[in-house]
């Protein structure tokens, strides 16, 4: 056997250890997952579908197939949107299988040196430290505001970047070195007579650096509908980027720190405004299920309390207050809006309709459902940076559906989707016609009018 082939072999042993074999055999190969899978819809290839990927995983574990670069690429091509899970008759936990497989591949993956360095810097050196993330925000802010960005754009310096990164650079919002706590403090009493509940805001890394305003708006909206909001300062990155990239141990470490931070804050709910983070928070109990009984119990305590902001408002909030807040805008011409699902909010948190319900409460807003709104936009964490071709194919199809709705505002509930939608609008030349916003920002904007 060539040297090239043998270097993949240790992956087999790792997969045997890490991939849940019972779950692999639970797939009965009915194929009902395929219509929901974006990469199958784009390629038409069985291997690029959940049924196909599970068959490949099983073939590797069973010794029917040796893993190779193409196997690794097929596992990388999965968006991890998990749209296949709700439609699976046998309830196969595909999301766990793909993460376990990626984890096994990462144990031995022959990364080029620079990728290894970059992964280490991001996963181990950056995201676990909120202060470092904020410092990165300051640096980005400096780039954007010092004139450097203008220089970079005008001199054509940015042309060294691939096209998809140039688009991302253009649509990137103004970054900030000050997070939500630095701006407005960490404790916010409920407006009105009595607090409905005490909730802890999960601020997120990207959210707090690039969408600090959305975090501020989330706090304000929650206090207006009756919640006392606390932002535990000891919280860290949720670990989703780690988990989805095959760094499960790092993800577990971050989870433990977050559980401790929110437990000590004595909250009734943990609220997230990013579907991608919320979904992993919601699955901390699975992530930590094989740890000690106390840790597992804490994780269950935490997971049970995780809610998306729209979900929490609809389930527990003072809707009367919310309606009052957004009723003032009714005299203006109606605005048409549509909503792109956050896959993880829909498929994992199972609260995909909550944002639509919130939008439905607002006067003067026409909601137009978009074809394929429940299908991934191609953002998928950092997928759009790693798999630009597939992500752009998916995105361009998505934009055709956005156009059909004639919406003036395109809403999302996750920062990754938001950036991707902005990139899509830019690619489709719709920048003057369509604004892309987080649901929370839209509600606050309507309330201020």
């Amino acid at each position, binding site marked *: 056997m060539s040297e090239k082939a043998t270097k993949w072999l240790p992956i087999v042993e790792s997969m045997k250890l890490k991939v849940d074999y019972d779950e692999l055999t*639970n797939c*009965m*190969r*009915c*194929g009902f997952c395929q219509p929901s899978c974006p990469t199958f819809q784009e390629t038409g290839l*069985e291997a690029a579908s959940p049924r196909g990927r599970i068959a490949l995983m099983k073939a590797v574990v069973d010794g029917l197939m040796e893993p190779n670069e*193409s196997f690794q690429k*097929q596992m990388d091509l999965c968006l991890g949107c998990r749209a296949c899970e709700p439609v699976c008759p046998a309830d196969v936990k595909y999301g766990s299988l793909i993460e376990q497989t990626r984890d096994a591949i990462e144990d031995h993956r022959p990364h080029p040196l620079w990728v290894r360095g970059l992964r280490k810097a991001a996963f181990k050196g950056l995201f676990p430290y909120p202060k470092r993330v904020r410092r990165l925000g300051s640096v980005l802010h400096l780039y954007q505001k010092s004139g450097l960005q203008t220089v970079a754009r005008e001199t054509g310096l940015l042309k060294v970047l691939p096209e998809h990164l140039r688009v991302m650079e253009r649509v990137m919002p103004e970054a900030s070195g000050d997070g939500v706590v630095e701006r407005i403090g960490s404790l916010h009493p409920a407006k009105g007579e009595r607090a409905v509940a005490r909730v802890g805001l999960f601020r997120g890394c990207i959210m707090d650096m690039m969408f600090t305003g959305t975090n501020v708006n989330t706090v304000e909206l929650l206090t207006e509908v009756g919640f006392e909001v606390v932002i535990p300062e000891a919280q860290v990155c949720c670990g989703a980027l780690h988990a989805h990239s095959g760094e499960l141990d790092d993800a577990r470490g971050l989870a433990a720190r977050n559980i401790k931070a929110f437990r000590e804050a004595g909250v009734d709910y943990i609220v997230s405004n990013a579907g991608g983070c919320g979904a992993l928070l919601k699955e901390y109990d699975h992530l930590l299920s094989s740890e000690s009984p106390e840790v597992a119990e804490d994780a269950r305590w935490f997971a049970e309390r995780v809610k998306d902001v729209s979900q929490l408002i609809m389930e527990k909030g003072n809707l009367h207050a919310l309606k009052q807040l957004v009723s003032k805008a009714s005299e203006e011409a109606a605005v048409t809006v549509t909503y792109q699902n956050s896959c993880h909010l829909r498929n994992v948190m199972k609260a995909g309709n909550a944002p639509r319900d919130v939008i439905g409460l607002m006067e003067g807003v026409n909601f137009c459902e978009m074809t394929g709104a429940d299908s991934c936009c191609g953002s998928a964490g950092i997928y759009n940076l790693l798999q630009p071709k597939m992500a752009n194919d998916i995105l361009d199809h998505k934009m055709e559906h956005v156009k059909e709705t004639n919406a003036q505002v395109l809403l999302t509930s996750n920062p990754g989707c938001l950036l991707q939608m902005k990139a899509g609008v830019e690619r489709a030349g719709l920048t003057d016609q369509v604004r892309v916003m987080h649901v929370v920002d839209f509600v606050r904007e309507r309330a201020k009018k």
Partner: protein
Amino acid sequence: MLQPEVRQRLSEIVGAEYFRDDTETRVSYSYDATPMLQSLPDGVVFPGSTAEVSAILALANEHRIPIVGRGAGSNLCGGTVPDQGGLVLVMNRMNKLLEIDTENLTATVQPGLNTKAFHEAVEAKGLFYPPDPSSMVISTIGGNIMENSGGLRGLKYGTTKDYVLGLEAVLPNGDIIRTGGKLYKDVAGYDLTKLLVGSEGTLAIITEATMKLIPAPRYRRTMLAMYRDIHAAARTVSSIVGNRIIPVTLEFIDNPTLRVVEAYNKIGLPTDMEAILLIEQDGTEESVVLKDMEAIQRICREEGAAEVKFAKNDEEAAQLMKARRSALSTIARIRPTTILEDATVPRSKIAEMVLAINAIAKKYEIEICTFGHAGDGNLHPTVATDARNAEEIHRVEQAFEEIFEAAIQLGGTITGEHGVGTVKAPYLEWKVGESGIRLLKAVKQAFDPNNIMNPGKMFAKESRKRVVVQR
């Protein structure tokens, strides 16, 4: 392994992108929805036109390479598992709806067209294509034709075979034939169209089909009837049809299924009932539909239904359908391997068949849940098991063997809608007899003298000896 010159030729015919023989591709086309079957092909081809299919088949015929046509790989008889290697022909690039002819009420389609997409396109024009196999979200029209798929609406509207008017097909030597047409009458020669429908890829590859459409019914009503006595439920089925009423759906759920579905879903099903009938009627006149439903309700009570529920609106209808819809998925969640059979008997024999299945389940100490299309006499005895437990699988196989025998003794068949493939091949002779097998083989020989078309399917090397059923 394919010879280098064959690989070269295939790449030339379809383009390098559409011929693959890497391990990943071969693994991912080594199975279909049939439990416990897997076998690697030597290569996979994705043809884009009839001409390409013709060139591929001629090449394969010359080199005696097995050809396995494949739609979505959702069949349950092992029909698309390449168990003798060769080439898998994936038809999903040829997936266009070529035409909906509103004057002749026909549609012309390519074989890879998705069944559900076809339904939606036809219904958007106020027309109707009734066959609705449960796999229609992924299945293709070509696959439905090759397997002669059924579905929930077979009682009133028939199955796939009743909607195929004409075909374009490629023979193993590369010849292209056209059968039938936009014709409701055509007696020119043997009916090759009907011969190809349900031929499971053993005779030819379909490259185009002309399908019959009908006007869409506008009204639909749903009801549920519950029985403490399984015979009363079975009598109701015969009695409804005997009263000259043909409902669109007449579904049956037995007590073991009810208990399993209720235990897992907690949707308030009556587990003290022996059987449930789920009945739907549709039509173009609301008053006619309502009249039928009232008559059906009366018949259910007369035959001894313990309770009858009438859905007032679509929401309630969906709620009633939930038990039937969640039957398979619930059973699939219990244990890793789900084996779903489709023994079929004359509808007057439904009660006897269900009781025979229950007795067989007891004998082999396995749990069989039975649900299915009672109006068609088409039952789905289903077992939740584990492929890794060889001893239990052996008992399951013995039980199913006895179920096939029981069905045949009641004047029924070994398969109503899933097809023979490899799974039922050893039992085909039980149904069609020795002379029948000889004749079928002669037909196969006439089409495919070199036996390259889906070899090993339909005909087993040797037939199973019939089991003696003690009664």
